[in-house]
């Protein structure tokens, strides 16, 4: 069962990633990108970490993909893209990808990941929370400061004075 789901997810993820690169229509490309990100969320579900999976869905599919869609819809495609049909570049890119993937795969297989067998229960998100406030508290405080800074910045940016004009008499 898990193997079949894993295979299906792999096909969806890799297939839609290729589609995202190759499709001529930018909108369909970003939909395919959503498929890739959703497939990765599926992998996290398979790995017994629904917490990460749901954040993947909420942040990547829900926000990043929306941003990309938004940008694609508001920008005229002809202004930023020139069609460059160069078969040599394409083959070079494919070769580069193959080399990278083989190298990464070799590193993975060499790292002893095949011999790991574990029946341990999945990590509870409460444990992650407890770890964050005890052992990793400096990281937590750093993240909190960065996030607070960015939220304050966003608020300051959003709170601007309206441009007065003649049409709106308030």
């Amino acid at each position, binding site marked *: 069962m898990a193997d079949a789901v894993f295979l299906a997810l792999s096909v969806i993820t890799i297939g839609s990633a290729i589609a995202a690169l190759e499709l001529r229509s930018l*909108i369909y490309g970003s*939909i395919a990108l*959503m498929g890739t990100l959703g497939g990765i969320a599926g992998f996290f579900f398979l790995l017994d970490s*629904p*917490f990460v999976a*749901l*954040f993947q*869905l*909420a942040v990547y*599919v*829900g*926000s990043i*993909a*929306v941003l990309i*869609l*938004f940008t694609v*819809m508001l920008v005229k495609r002809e202004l930023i893209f020139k069609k460059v049909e160069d078969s040599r570049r394409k083959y070079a890119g494919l070769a580069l990808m193959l080399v990278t993937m083989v190298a990464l795969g070799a590193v993975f297989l060499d790292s002893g990941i095949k011999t790991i067998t574990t029946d341990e229960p999945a990590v509870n*998100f409460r444990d992650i929370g407890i770890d964050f406030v005890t052992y990793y508290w400096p990281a937590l405080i750093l993240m909190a400061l960065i996030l607070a800074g960015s*939220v304050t910045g*966003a*608020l300051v940016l*959003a*709170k601007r004075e*309206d441009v007065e004009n003649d049409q709106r008499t308030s």
Partner: protein
Amino acid sequence: MSVLAPKFKLSEFIKSLFDNAFWALLLVSLVGLPLIQVVLFYIEMPVINGELLTPFLALTWLADPSRSLPIVKAFMATDMFRVMVFPGFGFAALLAAGTIFVERKMLAKLQLRVGPFYCGKIEGILQLAGDGLKLISKEIIIPAKADKPIFWAAPVIFVATAAAFVALIPVAPGGWVVADVDLGLLGVFAIIGFFPIITILSAWSANSKFPFIGGIRALFQMVSFEIPLILSLLGVVIVTGTLNLSEISASQSFFPWIVFLPVGAIVFFITMLAELERIPFDLPEAESEIVAGWLTEFSGMMYGLVQLGTYLKLYAFAALFVVLFLGGWNGPMIVPPFPEEILTEGIVLGPVTAKFPGLPLFDQAMLNGTLWFVIKTVGVIFFILLPRGVFPRIRIDMLLSLGWTKLIGLAFVNIFIALGLLYAGVLGPGGLQ
């Protein structure tokens, strides 16, 4: 005005009835009965209690409550029942349909109009069925230059996403929820994130000006109000220490969280109005400016599906408000216990005594929980509908500044209130709960 067709003749009508009966009998005897015989010949019927289960015997058993009630009970314990009937799609769709009718009638009364009146003789009670029939029978028109795959898929995906949202809502104690997941609230956030994508894709795919303007507005509005929505719910998570919606509901048996976190409840209510595109935040569908916003090009049952999804979403948001802030299913026990004498003696009607072993179908706590949940949810839906009769629409820059500056600030205030309650020992371990 005559309700009959102009060239109506009673004799023709009776003749057509006889015609239909003749054809039905002919088809049953020539096709139906042989088909049943063939099926019976090839299917091996089971032997139960030493008796071969013939169709005749099966029909006899169905009339016997001591045999049929266990079947009903077994069906009610299945996932299928939960998904399709209660507390899943059927229950939510029923409440949503009621909402549509009550909304039209109530707004009419608020604005001194009559509202639906003729359909169904009594106060237009059948208006909804009439509208549904009209939508089903209308032709689906697709704009010539629309992007057809996305345009067709968008309403279906919209309803599916709304139904997934409904599936996370716990309705009654004892596990009456479709998907009881540990991370239910995170699941809600993930599902809410899908609505803007579907909206903007359907708006873009129509390839028409008004839907696109409406879709862009919807995207702005939903994305900017998602942040205060998520932040306003963090207070409840902090004081309960769980993300499971059933546990959050059960944790409010003494007091609802709105008592301690009123700021969060107000922020959540306002963001809810914006996410649902209700007045005063109905810029995406502003009918006086951009026809019907992102719904302009939908026709026939596609529009019906989008409408169904919208009202399912409305029910789900109201139910989420009830679960998080108003105590969910908790309330004083007002449902009477199941009468004992029906269990022991059965129902006596003159000389006939009918015994129903296997009753009751639902226990008292579940019925009471459902009753309170429905009362609270209907109340919240009423407060969501009310502004539509009263308020004008606000400008989009006011909307965005409201979302980004005021509501986010208030949501942070709510989080600090929750943390203060927790660290002061009022709530949490050592405190009230």
